[in-house]
């Protein structure tokens, strides 16, 4: 229609008025490091794989997961999940059940027989990995991905190290362990079992290895000098659990005392119960607040009839009589003797007071530095310039399987740089996605999904797995509880809340971009972004 002058206007003509010039600050999209990723010793991109799990694309999620950690079904069971401790959702309701979803993905992968990514093309380099525990397996996997030939040796008759010989089956079923190890071996890892390495340097040279990764773990149970009669049965927890793992359990009798307060102590006590002990008593010199084991572990143990004597030490063990001394915590929280004693009937004493590493195989290796019984390493896990790397319990760090897996990965990359002569510039880490950057209003209230537990009677008698897994529904639910801290998950808020229509939506997976021709810089998008993935920066004027 031919419209009258000035009083009537053609629609949309205001687009010629570029209000972007009003701006003094401009919004920009950013990516921040989620606290879960930050806390994961294995360096998993947890939020990354949850992102795919949220959409039910479990295959993609699993693939994302195993880029960093080839053993999700195992980690989903035995990891102490520091990711969940760090999770921002704790401040909304409860942490996201990352560990449970990881296990769900791991189990699903085993069930569906998903295979790991094809190894990289052969570099012609050979690497010796000593020790087939979590560190060694992790290293072997990553080395294969990098295209290096790997020989994995272990003194035991089966692969898995402490995962097999230290962790009871009711926490980590052997079928799961075997499946995930087999999958790694299937990557083309040369394996030699029952092989004890006495001299690393010799084997490196003889075997023409370009590098060696030591992941020998801490196999020696610590002993303390407790007066005990000859007839008294005293055994260290490592040995005890190892024998159980090899289906050759020692006879401990009906009344078993376990001395120690770490996870191993609880593993030993709970295993003793399963072996028929009517009384499984943990004696610990400090109190509940100071024990090394996790709260879950304690609850489960108590649930299975294990009892605990807090603030007690074993004074002596004679025949069937064990004498305990009561302790008291001083101002610093350290236990001190009280001189009060009590007797306890016992058939056996299991010592769970920590483990030491046997590093005799390094005696001839040049340039190795051993302090406090562990090998010093650089950030690349290199222990000696000749190409010896070390990780897991053999180096200074928390002695957990997850830390070991992380070591394996880092060492693999260190070895890769070493043998290929790369000079890798350290990766830039994004700033942390802290809770104060979130707008939690937008997250719906969603209670954490609980994993089922095996009923008590069966837990006291069998080695059936205690903790069940999530089913597909609640795994999806749990995955979707993720707040996606610091990284856009395409909730469309910025696209919707802009008063100036100055946000372009680029389609699923493509995120958004700002139209700075019209953005006036009001900052609403920043305030209303649930996950803190936008920030304002001053305009250069």
């Amino acid at each position, binding site marked *: *229609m031919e*419209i009258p002058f*000035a*009083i009537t206007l053609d629609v949309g003509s205001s687009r010629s008025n570029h209000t972007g010039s009003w701006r003094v600050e401009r919004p920009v999209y950013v990516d921040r490091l989620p606290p879960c990723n930050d806390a994961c010793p294995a360096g998993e991109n947890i939020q990354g794989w949850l992102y795919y799990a949220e959409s039910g694309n479990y295959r993609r999620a699993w693939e994302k997961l195993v880029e960093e950690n080839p053993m999700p079904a195992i980690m989903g069971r035995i990891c102490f999940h520091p990711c969940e401790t760090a999770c921002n959702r704790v401040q909304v309701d409860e942490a996201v059940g990352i560990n449970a979803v990881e296990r769900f993905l791991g189990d699903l992968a085993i069930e569906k027989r998903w295979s790991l990514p094809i190894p990289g093309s052969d570099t012609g380099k050979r690497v010796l990995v000593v020790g087939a525990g979590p560190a060694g397996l992790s290293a072997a996997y990553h080395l294969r991905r990098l295209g290096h030939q790997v020989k994995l040796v272990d003194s035991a008759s089966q692969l898995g190290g402490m995962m097999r010989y230290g962790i009871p089956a009711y926490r980590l079923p052997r079928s799961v362990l075997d499946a995930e190890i087999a999958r790694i071996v299937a990557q083309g890892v040369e394996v030699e079992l029952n092989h004890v390495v006495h001299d690393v340097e010799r084997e490196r040279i003889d075997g023409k290895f370009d590098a060696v990764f030591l992941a020998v773990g801490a196999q020696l149970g610590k002993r303390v000098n407790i007066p005990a009669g000859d007839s008294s049965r005293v055994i260290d927890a490592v040995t005890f659990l190892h024998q159980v793992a090899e289906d050759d359990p020692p006879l401990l009798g009906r009344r078993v005392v376990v001395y120690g307060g770490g996870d191993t102590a609880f593993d030993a006590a709970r295993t003793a119960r399963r072996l028929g002990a009517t009384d499984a008593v943990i004696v610990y010199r400090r109190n509940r607040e100071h024990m090394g084991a996790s709260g879950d572990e304690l609850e489960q143990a108590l649930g299975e009839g294990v009892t605990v004597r807090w603030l007690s030490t074993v004074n002596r063990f004679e025949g069937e009589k064990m004498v305990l001394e009561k302790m008291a915590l001083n101002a610093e929280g350290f236990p001190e003797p009280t001189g009060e004693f009590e007797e306890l009937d016992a058939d056996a004493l299991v010592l769970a007071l920590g483990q030491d590493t046997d590093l005799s195989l390094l005696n001839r290796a040049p340039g190795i530095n051993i302090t406090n019984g562990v090998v010093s390493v650089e950030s690349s896990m290199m222990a000696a310039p000749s190409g010896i790397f070390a990780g897991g319990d053999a180096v200074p760090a928390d002695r957990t399987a997850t830390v070991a897996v992380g070591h394996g990965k880092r060492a693999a990359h260190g070895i890769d740089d070493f043998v290929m002569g790369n000079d890798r510039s350290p990766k830039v880490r994004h700033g942390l996605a802290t809770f104060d950057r979130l707008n939690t209003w937008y997250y719906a209230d969603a209670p954490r999904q609980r994993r089922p537990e095996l009923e008590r009677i069966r837990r006291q008698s069998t080695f059936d797995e205690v903790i069940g897994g999530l089913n597909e529904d609640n795994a999806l639910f749990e995955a979707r509880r993720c707040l996606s801290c610091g990284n856009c998950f395409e909730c469309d808020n910025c696209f919707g809340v802009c008063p100036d229509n100055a946000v372009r939506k680029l389609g699923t997976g493509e995120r958004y971009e700002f139209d700075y021709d019209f953005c006036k810089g009001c900052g609403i998008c920043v305030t209303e972004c649930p996950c803190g993935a936008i920030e304002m920066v001053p305009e250069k004027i």
Partner: protein
Amino acid sequence: MLRQIEGSRAIAETVALCRPEVVCAYPISPQTHIIEAIGAMVKAGTLAPCEFINVESEFAAMSVAIGASAAGARAYTATASQGLLYMIEAVYNAAGLGLPIVMTLANRAIGAPINIWNDHSDAMAVRDAGWIQLFAETNQEAADLHVQAFRLAEELSVPVMVCMDGFILTHAVERVDILDQATVDLLLPPYEPRQVLDPADPVSIGAMVGPEAFEEVRYLAHLRQLDALERIPVIAKQFAEVTGRASGGLVSSYRTEDAQTIIVALGSVLGTIKDAVDMRRDLGERVGVVGITSFRPFPGDAVREALRPATQIVVLEKAFSVGFGGVLSTDVAMSLQGEQHVLRNVVAGLGGRAITRRSLEELIATAVRGELPVLTFLDLDHEAVDRERTRMAGTRRSGPSAENLLRDRGTVGVSTSRSDS
């Protein structure tokens, strides 16, 4: 068809023949009979399709008309006096937006003092609103002007106000030839809006226009009114050809050839003036009458032409600008620039004061004798005015003049109210 019919009824039936699609109104004397009749026709279904909307105020009435017209419907309403003033903001807006609304104005005085009777103060109050204002001399002309008004409004996209004297015409039962539908359809094609609110072709109507363009917008409105000066005679001519009746146009002249004194006026008073002129002519006085049908746009050239024969012009009007004098006379004076006429101004018939033939004849006689002052208030009760002025000079609190004057007259104050019908 020739009928003996009340003026309001004649307007209602003629408006109905113009097929209005939206009619809205708020009652005010003396307009009520018009909208009552249209409302009845819509209810009875004899006027269809048409939406008749009872609104809550004149302001709303004009606003509804604005919306309807902008949406492409032929819109009509009617009002008077205070009602026109109450809607004045919307009256200006309708013109500014160029919406071809037709409104009947049953001319009535404006209070205070409240007064329901006829004069032209209301029409003059919106003189500058941008509406075309046509004045009817008779009910026949009032009826005919409505048909021409719709045609004119829609051709130019300008609203048109048809002014007819309240009560004197609206309530008078007289002879009116009501056109038939076929004739009206011939004279008035369907409404083709110049701009319309249409989802298929969206526009923004009613933008805010700043100093950079406002004057141009106003000037364009002025040019459209000047176009109307061309179109009004053409439309009247077409009307005459089709109906065989002369109605509308810019100005009308009566016995002005050879006239030395010409009386200029608007509306129904022209009839009484013509009678008076005839009487004076019989006495040999050379007087004539010029009626102005189109007050806005003001036909300056046509007026000058019509008045050329005379030496003395007497502008008689039913309104005045307090503190100055005539309104119409000012316009006439402007259009007579360069001419040598003696110009006289007479204010008459305010608030329904009867304008009698006798008073007019005396007025003419005085004028012919050359004794008419520049400004005259016809039949003014000078004694009453003098008494009130003395009273005011005497006491500070002399009370309201209107009541005082009535008391002096001994007249019983008639109870009136704006909304009565």
